[in-house]
């Protein structure tokens, strides 16, 4: 197992390098310019000067090498300096966003907590809703509950979040007035009241995303349960006179969870990636909102860095899913 993990980690290095180059070229070749948000009243000479000040007029390979150096050397050095008070990164240029001229990692640092709290909660809520629905739907296949669960999953799958989100805003914020429509990122939770306020402002985005997440996972859970329900070992368990509860929750569920856990683990990078539409809709200043804002403004350093971090996370969680698979299912061994 250890050699497998090490081999995979080593293999990840060239993979990620190639990915970073591909992302860089794709982002660079994509049409658009960091000057597109500048009003037309700013004349071309001034625009040219602004582009030069950003360094955006350099050849693409120069910018790529500079970015590699900044990402793998300057930024870690800066981090270590912050921890131990060393001066390795002194005088080095960090990766700066073209749009805001702030260091990209400072922006990511500001935004990760919001994304983890809101999107993470939505993911958790989604799982907690999905598992019972999936289990019971499979156990009572074609029952009224199963049909209801299927309908719920269909709605969650097919209704896009920009629609369900707006619908929730109109129902719960405009008509009923229960929840705010804009997420207050300056809210500090330090007492019971501010905690309630935080819950209230999280309600709508979590509801919107939770619905979408629950729909997908409940379907995986259901089909995995159905696969196992007809297995011989289930018949044996029943024949031994075990209670239905033990048969379903101990024998079937445990075995059915293996693929579902993989699916859940593979979905975790998307938590870090944030939810572009939902974050924008509710004004949650997460990573997804940052990414779409940067794409609109052709803020290449920001898009490039975020896309690359997502790539790292996806490679990492694929590995984690593989390892988990091996741990959960003793029949699977990689060595």
């Amino acid at each position, binding site marked *: 197992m250890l050699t497998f993990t090490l081999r995979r980690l080593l293999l990840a290095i060239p993979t990620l390098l190639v990915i970073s180059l591909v992302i860089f070229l794709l982002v660079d070749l994509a*049409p*658009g*310019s960091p*000057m*597109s*948000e*500048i*009003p*037309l*009243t*700013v*004349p*071309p*000479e*001034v*625009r*040219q*000067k*602004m*582009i*030069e*000040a*950003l360094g955006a007029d350099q050849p693409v390979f120069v910018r790529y090498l500079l970015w590699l150096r900044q990402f793998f050397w300057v930024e870690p050095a800066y981090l270590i300096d912050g921890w131990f008070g060393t001066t390795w990164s002194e005088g080095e*240029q960090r990766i*700066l*966003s073209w*749009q*805001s*001229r*702030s*260091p990209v990692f*400072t*922006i990511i640092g*500001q*935004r990760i907590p919001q994304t983890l709290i809101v999107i993470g909660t939505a993911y958790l809520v989604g799982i907690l809703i999905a598992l019972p629905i999936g289990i019971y739907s499979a156990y009572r296949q074609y029952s009224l509950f199963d049909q209801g669960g299927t309908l719920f999953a269909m709605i969650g799958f097919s209704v896009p979040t920009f629609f369900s989100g707006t619908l929730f*805003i109109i129902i719960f*914020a*405009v008509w009923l*007035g229960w929840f*705010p*429509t*804009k997420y*207050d*990122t*300056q809210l500090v939770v330090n007492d019971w009241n501010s905690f309630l306020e935080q819950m209230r402002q999280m309600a709508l985005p979590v509801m919107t995303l939770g619905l979408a997440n629950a729909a997908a996972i409940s379907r995986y859970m259901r089909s995995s349960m159905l696969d196992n329900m007809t297995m011989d070992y289930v018949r044996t368990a029943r024949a031994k006179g075990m209670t239905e509860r033990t048969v379903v929750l101990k024998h079937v569920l445990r075995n059915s969870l293996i693929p579902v856990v993989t699916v859940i683990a593979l979905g975790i990078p998307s938590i870090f990636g944030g939810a572009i539409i939902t974050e*924008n*809709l*509710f*004004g949650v*200043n997460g990573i997804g*909102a*940052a990414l779409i*804002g940067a794409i*609109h*403004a*052709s803020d290449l350093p920001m898009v490039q860095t975020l896309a690359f971090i997502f790539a790292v996370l996806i490679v990492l969680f694929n590995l984690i899913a593989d390892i988990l698979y091996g741990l959960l299912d003793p029949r699977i061994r990689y060595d």
Partner: protein
Amino acid sequence: MKMRAALLGAVAVMGLAPAAFAERGADGEVKLTFPQAVSIVNPYLSGGTKDILAAAMVLEPLAVVDPNGVLVPRLAVEIPTMENGGVSADMTSITWKLQPGLLWSDGTPVTADDAVFTWQYCTHPEGGCSQATKYEGVASVEAVDPSTIKVTFSAPKPNPYTAFVSGLSPILQKAQFEACIGAAAPTCTDANNMPIGTGPFKVVGFTVNDTVSMEANPNYRDPAKPAFATAVIKGGGDAEGSARAVMETGEFDYAWNTQIPPDSQAAMAAAGKGQFVVAFGTLVERIEMNMTDPSPELPEGERATVKHPHPILSDIKVRTALSKAIDRSILVEVGYGAGGKPTCNVIPGPEAWASDNTACLTQDLEGAKALLEEAGWTDSDGDGIRDKDGKKLSILYQTTVNPIRQDFQALIKDWWTEIGVEVELKAIDPGVFFGGDPGSPDTFQKFYADVEMYANNSDNPDPETYLGQYQCKNAPSPETQWQGENINRFCDPAYDALHAELTQTTDLAKRQEIAKKLNDMVTKDSMVVVPLVHRGTLSAHSNTLGGVQINAWDMETWNVADWFRVK
């Protein structure tokens, strides 16, 4: 005696009443929301209005422009003019006097050196200053004494109110930005996000592209202002969401740029929590006609250049017919509601500068057809599309991806089809269209289409620079890396000569007359530019927010010091 006591009492009450209302920080928090979040609070490194709106609450210029287009002193004692001796007789210099006792929010005094530094900061060749045009023609800025700023121009300047005037060109604190000049400008993150200013508020917290938190500036020159103790600007989402947060849920007090469809405007106004306000500046949604041939059959480098005049649109009759076929009031009704009005002018305001050109306002489909007949375009094969010499009257009409613009495209296509013109529509991502990348075929400057639609405006009530765009020399071409503002490639020596005259004219009435003539030359006389809608900036404020005076000539937050809570 009693009478006297009563009068004295009345006087005392009258004296106290405003004081009771006007106390700094008495009204709690004011919350603003922008559909686009603030990225940076330094207007010299940003070009987006969203950033400058936030900066205008913190940083101040010497003078601002009020909603009527009139200059009002801010940090200056008065507006320098030739009459009061502030502007030299030969118009090569202007001398500003700072108000006495001005302090930065950190308690240090404001001096003329700060203005000198600001000029150096923005004109540094490596700084990439986005407001460089404000300092164009400025030869030097000197501190005559700590409270006197003398701006000298390299040539006589009829309109000397550019440098240090309006929220686009405020004064920075030298002490804070001294190390941030030139190439170092973008690296000063703290200074760029939390500039020290003289305005009613100071920045206390900043999260990039999300929230700006402000507190009342303890050293603001008017001890009674601002009425609000704190201000928050939350950004992100869309215009609809921002408008809703003010007009329907009441979570915010002010929403900037709430340009939403007219039916949504009416529905939100009906909720009774707030109101929409609109200011008309010079923003005009227009169709620009390509005077050169954008045909893909031409070799790259000659396509859409003055070498090849447009085969169809070079004929003024065709251009006029296309304009005649459009019903501008329907466009306003569909797209903008209260936020727009039909116009035939490129310079729709201020009133004194706007031509009385209204001929295009009535749609005339029959007249348009007649004009096309006259120009030799007839439907010889009966397929509904006119042709001439075996060539179809077919045009490509491009604009950016934007719901209102797509509605406009559909409506205009219908009208043009009705007069026998075949129209192909194209919508381009705004980032590409306005991006100016010379390698992309889809930029508005390259204009690889027959007509295109977008909006443009003058950033100064005096349109000299703006009208200068249509000079022959400003046509984009491969030689200029496709940069240039004369995107129609319109070229009329008479226009260039008249514009040259404008730059030499100092008499205001004469200037206005020339500007009107120039406006007519590109619109009704030649129909190279077909104005459609004079667009306002539509914003929303809550009924509990008082003192809002929306302003098209300066930043909407220009008088934020005077905002208060209606009780």
